[in-house]
């Protein structure tokens, strides 16, 4: 309930939990608002479905996980202790059926003796198939916490980069001080804090320096232009060279986000960092310590001071350190009924206006859905105490998580019975305050100042003086207590339902390494990532194995510090945002012609150009092929890579990167080039034109444009820096179109300002031309096997030229053709694409072995390895069907006629296949063992997947116009 006159804000806020309406206040978290409304039961545990209540007041909360929102906007597993309430907030409990109050799977709790550590490794082993059909579905349905809606959420998140001199992580006393020192000294500072209000533990203090002091510092920091405050921002991970990941909750607290993204995932690059993340209080394991109403003492304190909420009418405090006494005093001062303080230490001098049991432990908690009483084991016997809230403090664990992210291993510090960070574990980062094991306010303040001063020194800046407030000298004085011995189950990992018994059993089964124990029991694998339990579990394991804690191991953490949504880290990639889209200049025209556009790498290219009368792609494709063979076709080939290569040594570079020679290429001529990787296999192919004595333009395949550019730069910069040559991509500069077919020259001559003929422009010629007044380049090259050209104009004219070319082609009985027809045309001609040069083919495999000239070139030596020149290799052939089955399919495998289609009989495979309208039958390209010597042989093609079994004749790969007469016409 809320104490009158205390707590945040005044504006009432209306929200619902499991459909019931409640009122909270602005500044409440869902947890504080529910506690203010006396709601104790908020969730169910993972395995045993035990009733659970709010346990903490921060993101480490293991119990109060709820689903926020409904439908596609539902967000599961949200910590009620972090979620701010707003008008209309809808929250739902999880992992229960049919309701939170009556959960059927709570039956699991009764079966607990059979469901202990690792039980599933020992059973459910048969009969075969039962795992997938019976056991696994049952287990899966019972497991899990919240549910995804299965639909994409409508709202967007974003990502951003930030840079600073000093990143301060955490805005408690140490962080505020560090930021102030650095800020006043002129450093470029980012102060990030996971809470929506900065101040950290100061906000949960009943005395100054506390909230007011924090407010004063924050006001000054806000006034400094060189300081950026990032509230609601959790630094989630430390990465190399001062890069940090951070998640900002931008609009999760707003009823109307008004255009704001939900979350922002920041990549912060900091020259130095101060970790001031504070510490987390740890529980004590005792029987039924998971009952709703058993809470962390620090949480009770935070709810009291920050939210004016007391989570019970009869409160007891149980601790092993002096902090418990401070809380008890503050509760009494606030008028709360403190039933008493149970201190496990013997040598404690009681002080304050409440009863104190020393040398006493809480050994059981009673009540199911709400705490009703506790049993104490005093030095003289047991005692039952009626309470509805128990505040527990087992001591503190420094929040050193980020110092582990680069592999740092925390060290055990005996006097505070806790792990502390290893200095230097993250280069440039220093821990200060409670996260460094400094548990008094005075030490936090001075460590914060010292850390900032050290960072400033490293940055070459002079620290300005900052006076620190007087902090009362509080003592910590802890005597470790990890678990209270006794019967029953005592929880370590609340979320995953790992108990002290489970850890002991793991040790008994020889899972004695801490890593084994964690993996066997699932300890620390739940959403709180062991924040509440890892150290306790380690201590219990140490006890079970008779070792010391540091001798047992250490606890280490991996990113993220607290869970981060996939939507935030993957922001912007939804839909088309995953990779840039590249559009050719003819895109709009092609779409206007009804062409379906397909992806070619990042590009979009037209598949085919349907006429109104055509209902199947094959009709369009066949027509387009015929058009090219009989009249003229137009195809945008701008997506092929184009690289401008200039310089006195341009030819020398080309001789090196191509298997064949280019230094002998004459000006005004084009040559086909085959490029090898250094390991001797084919990398890419294309044509290269010599535009001038020292000027070439190379084309690459669409897919290899990037890799080839990188390769050329590698060869030049790394292998042959002495060559005087320059390279730049001109792919984007030129729109280039194939004009292919017997009427291609007729078409072009209608456009060119000076006509061309076979003498001025023979096959494989190139040169500058003028098209409709625009300077252009013309290449007489052919992928289709027809008399063909490619004409290139500056991209601004691409769309206009495409439309003009298509219009004129149509006038000549031709038109535009797409990727389908392009593919058929090249298969008919036996031309290769990356379906054939798939990275495992040699020049010899594709019949180009003799192109490797007698000169140094990339890949020449490795291509001479015996395995690459073996005559038994699969060689490219053509196939035509000769049996009843006329269909050939890419991806089918080849066998001797009559051989069973088994792996050991495989002779090769089909790479490309199509129906050739020119030849009136299906044609394919394939790789076949010793294929070149097997032309005319009949072989079996089997495509199990598509149910095709065809008898084929092996042919030359060139099925159409093998003499190439049409090229030269």
């Amino acid at each position, binding site marked *: 309930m809320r104490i009158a006159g205390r707590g945040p804000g005044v504006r009432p806020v209306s929200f619902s939990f499991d459909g019931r309406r409640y009122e909270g206040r602005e500044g409440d978290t869902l947890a504080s608002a529910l506690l203010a409304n006396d709601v104790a039961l908020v969730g169910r545990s993972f395995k045993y479905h035990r009733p659970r209540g709010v346990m903490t007041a921060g993101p480490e909360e293991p119990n109060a996980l709820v689903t926020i929102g409904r439908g596609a906007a539902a967000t599961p*597993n949200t910590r009620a202790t972090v979620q701010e309430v707003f008008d209309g907030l809808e929250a739902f409990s999880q992992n229960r059926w049919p309701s939170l109050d009556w959960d059927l799977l709570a039956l699991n709790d009764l079966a607990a003796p059979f469901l202990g550590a690792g039980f599933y490794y020992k059973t459910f082993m048969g009969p075969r198939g039962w795992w997938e059909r019976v056991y696994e579905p049952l287990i899966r349905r019972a497991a899990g916490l919240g549910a*995804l809606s299965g639909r994409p959420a409508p709202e967007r998140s974003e990502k951003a980069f930030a840079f600073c001199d000093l990143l301060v992580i955490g805005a408690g006393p140490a962080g505020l001080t560090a930021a102030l020192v650095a800020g006043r000294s002129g450093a470029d500072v980012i102060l990030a804090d996971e809470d929506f209000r900065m101040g950290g533990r100061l906000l949960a203090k009943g005395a100054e320096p506390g909230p007011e002091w924090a407010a004063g510092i924050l006001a000054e920091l806000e006034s400094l232009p060189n300081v950026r405050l990032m509230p609601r921002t959790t630094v989630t991970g430390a990465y190399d060279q001062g*890069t940090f990941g951070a998640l900002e909750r931008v609009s999760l607290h707003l009823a109307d986000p008004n255009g704001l993204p939900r979350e922002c995932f920041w990549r912060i690059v900091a020259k130095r960092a101060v970790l001031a993340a504070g510490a987390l209080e740890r529980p004590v394991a005792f029987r039924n310590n998971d009952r709703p109403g058993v809470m962390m003492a620090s949480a009770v304190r935070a709810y009291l001071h920050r939210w004016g909420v007391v989570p019970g009418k009869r409160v007891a405090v149980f601790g092993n350190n002096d902090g418990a006494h401070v809380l008890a005093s503050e509760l009494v001062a606030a008028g709360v009924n403190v039933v008493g303080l149970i201190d496990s230490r013997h040598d404690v001098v009681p002080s304050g206006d409440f009863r104190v049991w020393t040398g006493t432990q809480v050994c059981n908690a009673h009540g199911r859905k709400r705490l009703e009483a506790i049993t104490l084991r005093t030095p003289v016997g047991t005692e039952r105490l009626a309470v509805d809230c128990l505040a527990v403090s087992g001591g503190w664990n420094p929040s050193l998580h980020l110092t582990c992210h680069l592999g740092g291993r925390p060290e055990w510090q005996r006097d505070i019975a806790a792990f502390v960070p290893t200095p230097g574990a993250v280069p440039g980062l220093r821990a200060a305050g409670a996260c460094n094991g400094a548990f008094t306010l005075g030490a936090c303040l001075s460590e914060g100042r010292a850390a900032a001063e050290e960072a400033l020194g490293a940055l070459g800046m002079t620290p300005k003086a900052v006076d620190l407030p007087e902090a009362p000298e509080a003592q910590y004085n802890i005597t470790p207590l990890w678990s209270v011995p006794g019967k029953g189950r005592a929880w370590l990992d609340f979320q995953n339902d790992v108990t002290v018994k489970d850890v002991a059993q793991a040790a008994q089964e020889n899972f004695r390494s801490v890593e084994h124990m964690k993996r066997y029991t699932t300890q620390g694998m739940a959403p709180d990532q062991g924040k509440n339990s890892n150290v306790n579990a380690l201590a219990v394991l140490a006890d079970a194995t008779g070792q010391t804690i540091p001798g047992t191991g250490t606890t280490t953490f991996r990113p993220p510090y607290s869970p981060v949504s996939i939507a935030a880290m993957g922001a912007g990639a939804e839909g088309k945002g*995953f990779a840039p889209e590249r559009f050719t200049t003819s895109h709009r025209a092609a779409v206007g012609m009804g062409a379906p556009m397909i992806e070619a790498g990042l590009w979009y290219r037209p598949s085919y150009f349907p006429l109104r009368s055509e209902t199947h792609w094959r009709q369009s494709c066949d027509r387009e092929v015929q058009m090219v063979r009989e009249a003229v076709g137009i195809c945008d080939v701008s997506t092929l890579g184009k690289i401008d290569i200039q310089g006195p040594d341009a030819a020398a570079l080309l001789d090196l990167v191509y298997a064949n020679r280019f230094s002998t290429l004459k000006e005004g001529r084009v040559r086909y080039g085959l490029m090898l990787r250094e390991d001797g296999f084919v990398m890419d192919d294309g044509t290269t034109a010599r535009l001038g004595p020292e000027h070439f333009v190379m084309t690459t395949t669409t897919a290899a444009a990037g890799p080839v550019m990188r390769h050329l730069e590698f060869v030049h910069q790394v292998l042959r820096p002495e060559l005087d040559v320059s390279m730049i991509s001109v792919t984007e500069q030129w729109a280039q179109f194939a004009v292919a077919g017997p009427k291609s020259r007729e078409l072009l001559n209608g456009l060119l300002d000076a006509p061309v003929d076979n003498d001025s422009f023979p096959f494989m010629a190139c040169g500058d031309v003028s098209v409709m007044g625009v300077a252009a380049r013309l290449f007489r090259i052919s992928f289709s096997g027809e008399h063909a050209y490619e004409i290139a104009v500056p991209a601004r004219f691409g769309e206009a030229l495409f439309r003009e070319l298509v219009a004129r082609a149509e006038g000549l009985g031709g038109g535009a053709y797409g990727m389908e027809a392009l593919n058929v045309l090249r298969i008919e001609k036996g031309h290769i694409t990356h379906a054939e040069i798939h*990275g495992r083919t040699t020049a010899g495999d594709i019949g180009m072995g003799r192109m490797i000239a007698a000169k140094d070139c990339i890949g020449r030596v490795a291509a001479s390895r015996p395995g690459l020149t073996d005559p038994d290799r699969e060689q490219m052939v053509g196939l035509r069907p000769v049996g009843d089955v006329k269909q050939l399919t890419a991806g089918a495998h080849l066998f001797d006629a009559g051989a069973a289609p088994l792996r050991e009989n495989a002779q090769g495979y089909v790479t490309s296949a199509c129906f050739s309208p020119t030849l009136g039958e299906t044609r394919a390209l394939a790789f076949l063992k010793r294929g070149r010597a097997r032309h005319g042989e009949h072989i079996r093609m089997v495509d199990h997947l598509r149910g095709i079994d065809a008898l084929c004749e092996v042919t030359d790969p060139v099925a159409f116009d093998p003499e190439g007469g049409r090229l030269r016409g």
Partner: protein
Amino acid sequence: MRFSALKVLKEGLTGNKGWTPHWRDPEPKPEYDIVIIGGGGHGLATAFYLAKEHGLTNVAVLEKGYLGGGNVGRNTTIVRANYFLPGNSEFYSHSLKLWEGMEDELNYNVMHSQRGLINLFHSDGQRDAFARRGNAMINQGDDAVLLDREGVRKHLPYLDFDNGRFPIYGGLYHPRGGTARHDAVAWGYARGASDRGVDLIQNCEVTGIDIEGGKVRGVQTSRGAIRAKKVGIVVAGRSGQVAAMAGMRLPIESHVLQAFVTEGLKPVIDHVISFGMGHFYISQSDKGGLVFGGDLDFYASYAARGNLPMVEHVMEAGMTLMPMIGRARVLRSWGGIMDMTADGSPIIDKTGVDGLYIDCGWCYGGFKAVPGSGFSFAHLIAQDRHHAPAAGFRLDRFRTGHGLLDEEGTGSQHNLH
């Protein structure tokens, strides 16, 4: 001790007091017939099959840290047999058959779940390449089904079919593909090997390999010298360092591969899905976490952790493929060190030293290979000749160019596989 439902029941009723250690913790003996360096999945499986298949039990497994602490405990748990190059097909096919009998063989529930794996394709060219793969799988006797877009939709209705950057043309469905509980595989083999008399020695780092006259004599360790007639190296992630103790240099570069798991969620993804355009693969564990990963970080590394660019790339792939997972939160990320070979396929072979054998280079496909690798490596060590399904994993294939196993077709650059 034999595990069964009855045993669990009986122990439950008697306070779970009767459970005994999964494996013994013996002191190392001064000499063994065979020493296996490396107590990861492959090493433990090797020891198990040495004992079970070859009756060789005077065997020690030497592990620098804790059993199963390497990549077997930090992967995305996918089990499949969908390779297409001869040399790979028969090996992974054999390995999958061992998976299918593993629970009987080990009397341990490794939760091998044949929930089906779907490799998506996004163009006609990719479909043809997957058809070649699927047909090769069937040639081998394994299972594959070519799904069209609607076929994929029936299995995976939650993918973004309408607006994704790379439209879904279909998928190659491998019904026998699936997942397993990774740690349990290591523990099951450890228990099986230990029960058969193999000594599993933890916290025992090998610091040298003793070779005399071209023959292996034993190893030096942090717990003293151990003599051995035969030594097997199975130390993924450290292969280069251990091989160097025998004067070898390997065609391997070590790379870090990151993986991710979300908080527990109710069942939502029932298959293993692989999205090649985004180098993204995902499944949901029995506990409810979405387990997923992507590509290497791409730089040579021995740090079992990565950096943000690849983290973000993986999340972005998830968002374009199945935006419904956006609200799931990543709970933990981790990295494993991969032996990346120069053709993307592994090595199980003899070395230039008599009695010294090596099993390495699993790139990032080592988990599914655990039983097959253990079986074949045990065969090689025991009989000094290759086990037929693994006969293609020769060390000299790079030098000769014969039998290169480059499934990706990316050539000799180690990190591109």
